Each structure stands twice: as C-alpha cells, then as structure tokens.
C-alpha cells in the first residue's frame, strides 16, 4: 500500500510488479481528496467515475499482460483550462461554467495513453490570469502549508493538490510563471518546458506565444517523467516543435549524476537579486548556490540588462494576445449567454455580446482584455505592442548570449514566499511585479524549473528557479536533481497533511 507521499515512480513500480492495483491507488487518492479538499479546494471537479473506470481498465490490461506506460496507475490532477472530453473545462470562468469540450487535449491523450488516471480538474485564476488562485469564478484555493495563504497561481489548484498529497503529479499551464510560482509557494517542483516542447492543442489559450503546459510533482524525477510523456511533436499545433523528446529518466540516474556537478556551469544573473527580493528568500537561494559550489559546479556572474523591462513587455504581449483569444467567448455559439433582454432601442446583437461578456468574465479578465485591446488599438499598436515585441527580441538575444556561456541560470522563483489571501487583491500592479523572475523564461521560450530550497521563518516554503537553453530540459532536470539529491526539502510535507 502506498502512503500519501508515494511518488509516481514508486506507484508505477508497484502497479507493474502487481504489489498494488491501479484501482486501489486511485481509491486512496480519491479518499485523500474527500478528506482534505473541503479545506484546500484544489479541485473544481473530481472525476471519480472516469478515474475509477480508467483504473479498472488498467488493471485489466495488466492482468492480460498488456504493455504498461510510464505513468501506469499514477493519479493525475489536471488544471481546468486543459480540455477533457469526460469533464467540464471551465477555466474557472462563468463564461464556460457548463462547457464540456468535444475533444481531449493532446496532453490528456498522451497522459492517459501512458496509464495516468485523471482524478479531477483543478482550480485556477480565471483563464489562468493571476498569481494567487483567488480570481476564479468558483471560489479560491488555499495553501496546504497555511490555509490563510494563497497557493499561488494560476495553477494554484494543481500545486496545492500535489503539496497536500492528493496526487503525486499534476498538469498546469505556465504563461508567465503559472506553474513555477505556485510550485514555489506550495513547496513542490514545477517544470515549464521549452516553448513548443508540448502541444498546446486543447490548452485554452491565454497568451498563445507564451503558454506552455507544465508539470508539477513532489520530485524532480516525477516532474520529468510526466514531461517525457506529454512532450513531442503534434501536427495539430503548428507551434509545436518537431524535435522528438529525449529520455530524461536516464539523465537522473546516479551513474549519470556521478560527475555531472563538476562539469556544471551555473550563471547567476545579477538582476535576479536586486531590490524587492525578500532577504529570507535570497538567503535560501544563496544557500542552494553554496550547495552547487560544494558539489564542484562553476559559478559565473552574468547579466540580463533588459530584465527590468520584462514585466512591462510581458503584460503588453500577454494581454494583447488574450484580448484576441478571449474574443470568442461571446455567448453566440457556446458558453454563457445572457438571459437579460436588450433595452428597447438597443441593437440586440451588440447587447448579446456585451451582456454575455460582462456577466461571463471576472474583474481581472476584464482588466487584461481592456489593457490588451488598448495595446493593439490604432495609434497605440506601434507604441505599445510593437515596442514590446522589440524589447522581447532584445531580451531573447541577451538570454541566448548568457546561456551560450553557462549550462543553467539560477535565481529565486518568486521575490517572497506565499502571501495572505486578500493581501494583494487591491493592488494588481504589485502582483504583476512579483512575476518578474518567472516571465523571463516565457518571453524567451526557454525551459525553467522551480524546486523547493528552504522555508521562511513563518513556515512557508521557498522555491528556487533554474533556467536552461532551448530544448535544454535534460541539463535542466539534471541540475535540479543534483541539488534535490543533496537536500531533504522534497521530503518535508505540510504538517496538516502528515
């Protein structure tokens, strides 16, 4: 029997070896959700029936001697902006409150083909716009380490579900840090792949040039295994790369790690340690750097001079794209449609649009749609959107240059540990600024990972971030595992869920 903290790798071994049945594993996961999720509210929907049927089918396959995938019997939580045929996909929005997609996302197909058992759809900030999972239409989620704190976001539900031990692995989406930031706040691993590594087919778009499905787990190995399963070419997504995914597991074996550290060159961008960084977080990350140094890695000071503009660039590009991506939610073809009749002399079609959208979207989504519409408007497009693209290209060149000299970059994932619920909801700009460290990877399309590296005095976890060049996932997870192997943070769990 597995415990709450059994890893996906262990579960697979047991299921393959016949020590546990997928049905039992699935039942335990569902029972933990039943017991703990009334407090956390990580899930918007628990797909009990679907999960049970899948688990049974897997057990039947095993009994029949069929091949078992890399995630055989592993319970998986899925962020609710990833399309599933078997459950509603709401994006935590009234606009899609009852929306049931007619197709599965590419990542769902691949995860299920590898034997994953999807136990539910997790909460998020509406349409993945936010960093706290406070802005969903169906209520907020809480941080398993401290129920008064946010789990981060927008993949806060997935992060909390992993941290609370409901599931060993989860899928999130990362547009500006939405996988890594909640991973840091909840003390788990969050991996954002290279842009194009994973098919976006079936991921409801927020900022299409930045969005990427990412993986969350309690260990680097599990996050890497889930990525291995979902990554790879897909003709249905024209931005998906044609490079085949490499075997990440072999990079994490003790043999592969043996003298990896001494060959490792780690870049420390000075812009990651500037004003606004909480001293406790800085101390934890400096501690991690010391561990690498002790292991024999070379430390190199580097700089990304354009990084101070990253937040502005990000919020222009992401909102411009989202204003267009969200235009389709108008109540005409599907989703929420207003029931209010138009005013006597109003144009009925315009009323249908404006009332359906006014009722369908929450405040943060509206704020970003308006910002993006403005950024693309005639007379402003060059000044704002055009300029943002220029700076993005500049930042990319700087990143390429830096990453040609080192294997990975290191820095904090977030400037602070998790904040209290409601603490920042009055000040969206402050929340936007807190994304500084993570959005660079999205703007440059490079892979990045957040792993736990300590705790603040208040007991909340702290995460550090590594970034690697394009398609550098093997080096990235290897560097992350080197640190994880030396530390015990991944074995620390929220006291309330012990």
């Amino acid at each position, binding site marked *: 029997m597995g415990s709450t903290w059994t890893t996906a790798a262990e579960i697979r071994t047991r299921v393959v070896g016949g020590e546990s049945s997928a049905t039992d594993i699935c039942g335990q996961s569902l029972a933990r959700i039943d017991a703990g999720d009334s407090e956390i509210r990580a899930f918007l929907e628990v797909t009990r029936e679907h999960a049970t049927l899948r688990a049974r089918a897997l057990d039947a396959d095993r009994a029949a001697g069929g091949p078992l995938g890399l995630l055989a019997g592993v319970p998986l939580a899925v962020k609710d902006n990833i399309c599933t045929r078997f459950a509603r996909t709401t994006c935590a929005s009234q606009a899609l409150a009852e929306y049931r997609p007619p197709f599965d996302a590419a990542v769902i197909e691949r995860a299920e083909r590898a034997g994953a058992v999807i136990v539910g759809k997790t909460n998020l900030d509406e349409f993945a716009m936010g960093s706290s999972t406070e802005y969903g239409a169906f209520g907020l989620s809480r941080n398993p380490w401290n129920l008064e704190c946010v789990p981060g976001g927008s993949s806060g539900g997935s992060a909390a579900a992993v941290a609370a031990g409901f599931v060993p692995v989860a899928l999130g989406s990362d547009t500006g840090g939405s996988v890594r930031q909640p991973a840091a706040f909840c003390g788990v691993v969050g991996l954002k792949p290279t842009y194009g590594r994973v098919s976006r087919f079936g991921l409801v778009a927020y900022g299409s040039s930045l969005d990427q499905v990412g993986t969350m787990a309690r260990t680097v190995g599990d996050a890497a295994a889930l990525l291995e399963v979902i990554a790879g070419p897909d003709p249905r997504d024209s931005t998906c790369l044609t490079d085949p995914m490499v075997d990440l597991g072999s990079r994490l074996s003790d043999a592969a790690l043996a003298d990896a550290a001494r060959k490792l060159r780690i870049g420390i961008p000075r812009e990651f340690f500037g004003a606004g960084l909480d001293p406790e977080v800085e101390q934890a990350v400096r501690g991690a750097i010391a561990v690498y140094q002790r292991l024999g890695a070379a430390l190199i000071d580097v700089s990304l001079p354009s990084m101070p503009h990253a937040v502005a660039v990000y919020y222009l590009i992401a909102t411009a794209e989202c204003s*267009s991506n969200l235009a389709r939610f108008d109540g005409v073809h599907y989703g929420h449609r207003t029931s209010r009749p138009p005013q006597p002399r109003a144009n009925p079609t315009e009323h249908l649009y404006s009332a359906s959208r006014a009722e369908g979207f929450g405040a943060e989504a509206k704020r970003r749609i308006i910002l993006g519409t403005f950024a693309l408007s005639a007379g402003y497009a060059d000044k704002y959107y055009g300029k943002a693209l220029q700076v993005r290209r500049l930042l990319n060149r700087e990143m390429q240059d830096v990453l040609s000299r080192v294997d990975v970059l290191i820095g904090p994932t977030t400037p602070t540990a998790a904040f209290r619920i409601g603490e920042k909801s009055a000040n969206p700009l402050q929340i936007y600024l807190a994304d500084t460290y993570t959005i660079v990877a999205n703007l440059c399309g490079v892979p990045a990972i957040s792993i736990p590296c300590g705790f603040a005095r208040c007991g909340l976890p702290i995460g550090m971030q590594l970034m690697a060049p394009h398609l550098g996932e093997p080096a990235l997870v290897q560097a992350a595992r080197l640190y994880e192997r030396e530390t015990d943070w991944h074995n620390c769990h929220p006291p309330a869920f012990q």
Partner: protein
Amino acid sequence: MSLAIDGCVVEPIIGLEVHLQLATRTKMFCGCALEFAAPPNSRVCPVCLGLPGALPVVNSHAVELAVRTGLAMHCRIARVTRWDRKSYYYPDLPKNYQISQYDQPICGPGHFELPFGGHIRKIRIRRAHLEEDAGKNIHPGDGITAVDLNRAGAPLLEIVTEPDLRSADEAKEFAEQLRRLAAYLGVSEANMMKGQMRFEPNINLRIRKAEAVFVTPIVEVKNLNSFRSLHGAIEYEVQRQFDEWRETGRTTAVGNKSNRGWDDVGMRTLPQREKEEADQYRYFPDPDLPVVKLDPAWVEHLAEELPEMPIPRTERFTCEYKLPVRDAPALVDDRATADLLDHAAEAGADKATLGKHFLGCWSKLANERGVTVAGLGLPPTAFGELAELAHRGVVSATAAAQIAGEIVRCWEAERRTAKPEALAETMGLVQNRDEGQILEWVEQALAANSKAIADSRENPKKAAAICGFLAGQVMKLSAGRADPKRTRELIAQRLESV
C-alpha cells in the same frame, strides 16, 4: 475613360477587391470538407467552430494555389509570408477574429494585361493574400438569426488591384477575365452562384470643371456577387457621386471613405452601418501560426508549370488555327480540348484544317454526346491524321465528317482507334483523281444537261452557277468521290471549248 456630364469631365477611378474561393478539398486551417449546400453546420470541427483549445493548421494546397494565381498575375511572390488576426465581432465569425494576412501577403505587386476597347490595358495588382471565409448568417424569420458555419474557414484569396480601372465596363471585363484565368489555372471553380467569387469595388471620381480638379470621397461597395451587380453598382455610384458633389461640393479627405451595400432589386447602392472602423481591426501576427517560408526553387517550378494564359492563347488560336474571333474564346476556355488541339497540331497536321474540324465535325459529335471534344477520349493522332487526309485532298470535307463519326463509333463500340486512312478506303470515300474517269462523268453530266450549256453560252453571268451545278451532278454520278477541284477545272475547260 472620361465622361462629359453637364460641362464637367468626369473620370471614374476604380479599384477592385476580389475574393476568390480556392479549389482545395478542405478548409484553410482545418480538415473539414468544402461542400456547397451541405446541411447547415455539418461540415465543421473544433477548429472552424473556434472552440477553445483548438488550433489552426495551414492548408498547404491553398498556399500553392495562391502562389500559382500570383504567378499568373506577374506578382512578386513572398519569400516569407505571415498570418495576422483581424478582429471584429460578427455572429458568423466564431473566433471574432479572422485569420488573414496584413503586412506580409503571399503575393506582392503584379499586373494583369487586359484587352479592352482595342488596347491592352495594364491593370496593376497591389497584392493578393490568403484568409479564411466567415460563415453565413441566416434570417429564417421571427427576428431569429441562425448561423451556418459550413463556409467558415473556407480558403479565400483576396486580390486587390490598384485604382486603375476607369469604367463599369472595364471593371466588369477585368472581373470576367480574372474569373477565366482562375478557372483556367484550376485554382478556383469561381462559381458566382456558389459565392466563390465576390467583388468589392472602391469608386470615386476625378471631376474637371474649367481649370479646377475635384476628387470625390471614396466609396467601397461591399459584397457584390455577380458581374451584373458589379457593373450596376459602379454605374450607379458614378452618377450618385457626381450628383452628391454638385449638391454638397464634398471632396475626398482622410477618414471620409465610406461603405455602401448593393440593392440588387432596386439596382442602387445604399449607405451601410459600419461594422468596425477600418483602422480598428487591431491586426497583429497570429501567435498560433509560424511564418510560411516559400522556397524560391519551388516557386520557380510552379512558374514553369504555368499554362499559357487564356488571353494570349485565344489570340494565338485565331492566328494559327484560323479560328473565327467569335468562336476562339470558348474553345480556349475548354482547356483540355485546347490542349488536345495543340497536341494534334504538334504531330504536324495542317492547323487550319484541324481548327475547322474542331469547330465542325468533332464539336458536333461531342455535342451529340454531351461531352467536350477532349471528352470523346480519342488520342491526338486520330484528329491529326484525319486533318491531314482532308488537307491533302484524299477525302472531301463531307467525307471527313463521315470518317470522324465512324472513328467515334469504333472507339465507343470496340475501344479501338480506327485509322482514318483505312476508314476512307473501306468506306469508299477516297476521292477519285483518275482524269479519264472524271472526264467520263463530266461528259455524262453535260449530255444530260444540254439546256444548261446553251444557257451558259447565252448568259456568261450565269456561267459560274452552271459550273457549280454541273460539278454537283458529277459528285452525284461519282457517289461523292470525284476530286472536286479537278472536276471544276475539267468542267470549265469543257464549257469554254464548246
């Protein structure tokens, strides 16, 4: 072409936007079939429905057809072409943006040589770009608007001319020749009834009065779907703009371009409610689609494969095959038959005779069967050999037609290509050139018609007619086999010598 109206010289300035639906099997960005008059919303999928999470994939056949059309119009073909989103809200546009091309269209500047009014007019093409069509709003009554999305996502090539057209007649001629070209290249069915070709003329006037020149505001007439409405709309606008100018004196200025619709019953244009300000389409590059790189070698290959265009080919056919100007275009437009004619001629047959046969006996046989000449299925040699036989005088024109009939019969009955020469023998149609024999028939004819000979002596004006009459008698006696030329010569000699 200028008109004189009430002491003013009025020159219409007309540019044309033509939407051409490309003859692909599937839509522009998804695999749905293009099928006219299918049950509403039966040819749709998540992509063309604009469902969240669905992504567009470029139809490469549409790209090829666009390049071929561009090459035929001497356009500069882009090396790199990009997709942009054009935003506006309309119920038949499921994403509320249209995937189009803004500043990097697939086809750049080119021109079209239009024979008009006895000159070759060079109509400059500004650009041609690919885009997806919208669906159709249907108004079944009771204030209900229904939407059929079968057409949504159909591939369109939008061809934009410079304002080089100067009259309704010229614009109509250009549109007709463009349609002919599209059909010829096989890039579009260009079926007006199916809405596969639509026009939006931009019209204004340059008015000269005494020494002053006035330019009226530009009007774009939307969505014309017949040559008749195109012609009517331009004629109407010319008069209306002139009247308006005389009344208000309003001339063109930035921002006073307006859209008008066409009332097909009243044959007039009407002001149209503006959907969105033209400069508020908020164009930006579609982040779901990478740029398309067109290999110059491939473009070169397509250029080499281009057929001879209908206008020059018509001209050549009238010269080489001596086709009447009235009949040549129809033969040329039937490209398979025109190709067959060229192939038959390549083998060395007499071209004028071939031309006569194609318009004569072969057309008759094809018409009887409801096919084109090419549709008869015969090899080019059959046509060439028969033409040669007739040209050498081996058989008469009447006999050639009989042989053609027999060739078709053999082909249909026995799938055998009969040799014209052999048929002429077996059918007894070879012309007799034996002087002695012909002379004998001539003597017989003279003997039987002594009154006619007497007439010819009395009235030399009648001599030619009598000669023809006697030749007819010889033909009867010889069962059509006497060489007609020689017969006439012998008759003439005999009449003179009497």
